[in-house]
């Protein structure tokens, strides 16, 4: 293992620099913060899925000892609707008040906030807020939300339809299907998930009357986006009077991207009471109010030729958006989903039709992978269904259809141009790690003994390094998706990097430092990474969509390049050489090819701040800022395999092996990439086997509302993972990095479900419509298969 004194650190598994504070309990999370005069907020929430608010009586609550203030939706004057940041054509955008005014539309929809001297007093008083409800019918089932007779949720969205969207070529698919030897048709349900970052959402809002400044500490993946949305769209406070700090954040997985009701209300309320307010979500509130993920119901048809070539794919999806449009919700089941249906295959034709529907459920938005897992799951399930129909081997049929190796662009049938890929190589590596032939013969032997062993594959493509601003702007994004980096070289040659990316587990303090130490040939201990503070950092779009290394990292590299250019001028002047003759090698500026004629980095830094002998017309100081806007997405890819055993008496699925080959482009820190792949796999396996948010029909209650009811994967439910990589650098950015944060989540779910279907094949099972594959569900499938149903 490399040590911290090395400067050639790019590509090395060095230990994380952020860990010492976490392993000693000295992390700095939002709920750890305590300010003088602090008050504590509790939200009164709707216990009903859909109900009109006739009246809210706060008399008794207000009299409760310790209560400072109580506000209801009607009190929030001058506060606008929470905005939607991605507008599709003809999208219906209903009002989304931070506190519901007339109607609550999901269990957990906040209707009032109680602020008190202590958390206990706030909780006690909240119990005394009396809401007179008029209960209306709930609408929870995705496939039935747009049915005639379903209760109308928003006036602006007749039939509960938020949008209709399509991509691809419908006529080409019709044509392709005419020559297909088989057309497999399957219904595929991608169930609703809850992100469940271990740290619940929290905020502390502090208004300083003397200056008019507002500071908001919030569990955010993108503090600048929080500030922009809150100031420009909701609260009307000047942006420069607001500072948003996202300190240590305990996981996000997408759920902490969005602007939520609670931080908006606290930011407004602190200006009214002129005292700081802290709010921390309980886990129950997290289940009810953190944006959920997935929730698609799809009818898919795949047409194949007799020899297994994919001729066409037709997809009709209904995507559940929940009760309101969360910040980036419309993008997830459209541009992050339909555009990925080409997978890693040469597809004859594709058409995808998506209807987004409102329901009386928690809003749905990006959850790790966001759209891409839904696309990969669908495609990989359909390919295996196609193989079954053709009685072909599931590995062979994939090999037959891979896009051949390419280095500079592949135009898909659904708008995207992939950057670089070598899909067959990753798959071949996977087969060899798995020892595929042996696994199949072992499976055969086990079957003879009556055991149900299954092998499942998945391949995937991911669009990450989000995203070229022009492209996403043309598709409806109300934001640019560049990233900023300021690299400040201090007079002593130490370096502080101010990045717009935000680390909430990704390890940027390590990987970005590796990048800087490597590019400047300086010790890593001379580098500090600052993130998560709008008061310190120029601007930033934050961390999601596996964009930090590729977009945020490239912005840092660009600033370092500018530092070097300026340094060359300073050093050339000191050496009485021409700047054009200078190069930067091993931590010094030298005349090309003459290491003896050189000025060390530290001396150039000092000269920049003590510019006595200095080039004419050059500004003092050594600090550069860059905004990097990528020219394209990056497209990591890979192939995963899973081996399972199904207990035929109980339906219990045991994961025997999990093998993964990922290609995330160039790797900065293999240990960190492996760690992210592991965690992603666990979440993907979780979706396949255990996780699922369930609403009760009729009442619209979230019945999986605690960790007792929603099955998060535990240590004894998962195996050790066998992970390897292939490396296909992206030509999109100079670092060659593609992105690694979501790969496992995308790949794992189809691999596991395919394995379970394969295990049950001797019983005549060739498809399972609905996840998770809990023992109960699998047992029922086995019983039905045995009964010949």
């Amino acid at each position, binding site marked *: 293992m490399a040590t911290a004194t090395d400067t050639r650190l790019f590509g090395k598994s060095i230990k994380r620099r952020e860990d*010492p504070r976490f392993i000693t309990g000295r992390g700095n999370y939002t709920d*750890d913060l305590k300010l003088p005069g602090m008050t504590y907020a509790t939200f009164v929430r709707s216990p009903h899925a859909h109900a009109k608010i006739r009246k809210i009586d706060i008399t008794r609550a207000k009299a409760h000892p310790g209560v400072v203030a109580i506000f209801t939706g009607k009190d929030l004057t001058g506060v606008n609707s929470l905005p939607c940041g991605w507008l599709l054509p003809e999208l219906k955008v209903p009002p989304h008040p931070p506190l519901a005014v007339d109607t609550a539309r999901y269990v957990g929809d906040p209707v009032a906030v109680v602020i008190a001297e202590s958390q206990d007093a706030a909780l006690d008083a909240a119990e005394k807020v009396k809401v007179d409800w008029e209960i209306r019918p709930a609408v929870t089932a995705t496939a039935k939300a747009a049915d005639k007779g379903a209760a109308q949720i928003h006036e602006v969205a007749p039939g509960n339809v938020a949008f209709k969207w399509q991509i691809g070529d419908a006529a080409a698919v019709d044509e392709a299907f005419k020559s297909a030897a088989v057309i497999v048709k399957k219904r595929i349900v991608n169930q609703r998930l809850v992100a469940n970052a*271990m740290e619940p959402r929290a905020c502390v809002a502090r208004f300083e009357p003397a200056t008019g400044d507002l500071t908001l500490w919030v569990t955010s993946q993108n503090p600048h986006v929080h500030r922009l949305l809150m100031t420009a769209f909701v609260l009307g406070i000047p942006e420069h009077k607001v500072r948003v700090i996202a300190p240590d954040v305990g996981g996000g997985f997408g759920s902490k991207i969005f602007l939520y009701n609670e931080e908006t209300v606290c930011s407004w309320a602190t200006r009214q009471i002129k005292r700081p307010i802290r709010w921390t979500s309980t886990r129950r509130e997290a289940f009810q109010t953190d944006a959920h993920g997935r929730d698609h119901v799809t009818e898919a048809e795949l047409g194949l030729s007799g020899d297994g070539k994919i001729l066409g794919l037709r997809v009709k999806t209904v995507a559940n958006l929940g009760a309101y449009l969360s910040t980036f919700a419309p993008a997830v089941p459209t541009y992050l989903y339909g555009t990925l249906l080409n997978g890693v295959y040469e597809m004859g034709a594709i058409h995808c039709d998506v209807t987004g529907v409102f329901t009386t459920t928690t809003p749905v938005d990006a959850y790790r992978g966001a759209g891409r897992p839904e696309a990969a799951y669908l495609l990989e399930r359909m390919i295996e269904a196609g193989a079954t129909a053709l009685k072909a081997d599931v590995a062979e049929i994939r090999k037959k259809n891979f896009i051949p190796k390419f280095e500079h662009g592949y135009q898909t049938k659904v708008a995207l141009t992939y950057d670089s890929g070598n899909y067959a190589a990753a798959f071949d590596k996977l087969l060899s790690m798995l020892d595929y032939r042996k696994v199949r013969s072992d499976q055969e032997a086990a079957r003879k003994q009556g055991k149900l062993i299954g092998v499942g594959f998945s391949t995937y493509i991911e669009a990450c390094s989000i995203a070229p601003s022009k492209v996403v702007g043309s598709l409806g994004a109300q934001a640019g998706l560049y990233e900023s980096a300021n690299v400040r070289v201090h007079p002593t040659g130490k370096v502080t990097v101010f990045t717009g990316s935000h680390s909430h587990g990704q390890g940027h303090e390590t990987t970005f430092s590796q990048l800087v130490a490597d590019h400047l040939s300086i010790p890593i201990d001379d580098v500090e990474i600052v993130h998560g503070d709008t008061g310190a950092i120029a601007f930033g779009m934050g961390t999601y969509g596996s964009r930090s290394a590729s977009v945020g990292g490239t912005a840092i590299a660009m600033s370092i390049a500018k530092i070097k250019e300026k340094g060359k001028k300073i050093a050339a002047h000191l050496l009485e050489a021409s700047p054009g003759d200078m190069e930067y090698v091993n931590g010094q500026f030298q005349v090309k090819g003459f290491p003896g004629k050189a000025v060390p980095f530290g001396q150039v830094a000092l000269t920049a701040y003590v510019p006595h002998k200095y080039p004419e017309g050059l500004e003092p100081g050594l600090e550069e800022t860059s905004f990097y806007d990528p020219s394209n997405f990056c497209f990591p890819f890979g192939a995963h395999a899973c081996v399972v055993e199904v207990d035929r008496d109980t339906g219990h699925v045991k994961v025997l092996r999990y093998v993964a080959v990922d290609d995330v482009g160039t790797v900065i820190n293999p240990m960190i990439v492996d760690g992210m792949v592991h965690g992603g796999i*666990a979440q993907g396996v979780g979706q396949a086997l255990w996780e699922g948010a369930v609403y009760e029909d009729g009442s619209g209650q979230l019945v999986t509302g605690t960790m007792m009811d929603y099955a998060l994967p535990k240590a004894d439910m*998962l195996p050790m993972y066998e992970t390897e990589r292939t490396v296909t650098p992206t030509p999109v950015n100079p670092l060659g990095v593609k992105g690694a944060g979501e790969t496992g989540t995308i790949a794992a779910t189809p691999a596991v479900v395919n394995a379970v279907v394969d295990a049950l094949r001797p019983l005549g099972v060739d498809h399972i419509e609905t996840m998770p594959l809990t023992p109960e569900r699998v047992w029922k499938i086995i019983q039905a298969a045995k009964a010949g149903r």
Partner: protein
Amino acid sequence: MKHSVKMTINGQTQSHEVEARLLLVHYIRETVGLTGTHVGCDTSQCGACTILMSGQAVKACTVFTVQADGAKITTIEGLAKNGELHPIQQGFWEKHGLQCGFCTPGMILAAHQLLERYPKPSEELIRHQLEGNLCRCTGYHNIVKAIQWASEHMAGAK
């Protein structure tokens, strides 16, 4: 009505007047001010609040402060001695057993009891013993490795 409690936390005596309903985890975090012990759920599932109470790993969200009267408590802040990391802490660092760090204090203290009971645990035993602690980042692979690392190094130290 308030109750007097007195206990030792990380070697320091603490005495306060508390409400009967005050949970030990909130006492540790809010009254004593040791924020390394985290709250990740409200149903005793996640284990982020795990501490050592008179030698036992317990979930501090499931103990009333008054029940801890007279107890000797170690939180994550008290595990390193004289600036030297405990082998379990070191193991989590060496083996990348954490990402966001939120579950880590509870994981480390659960592992502490695990290794006291079973100094040479198998992978299966480690996984089984950690069933009261949830991690959403690591997929547990490197947590298992971290505890194996600690097991090896603690054996060497004895």
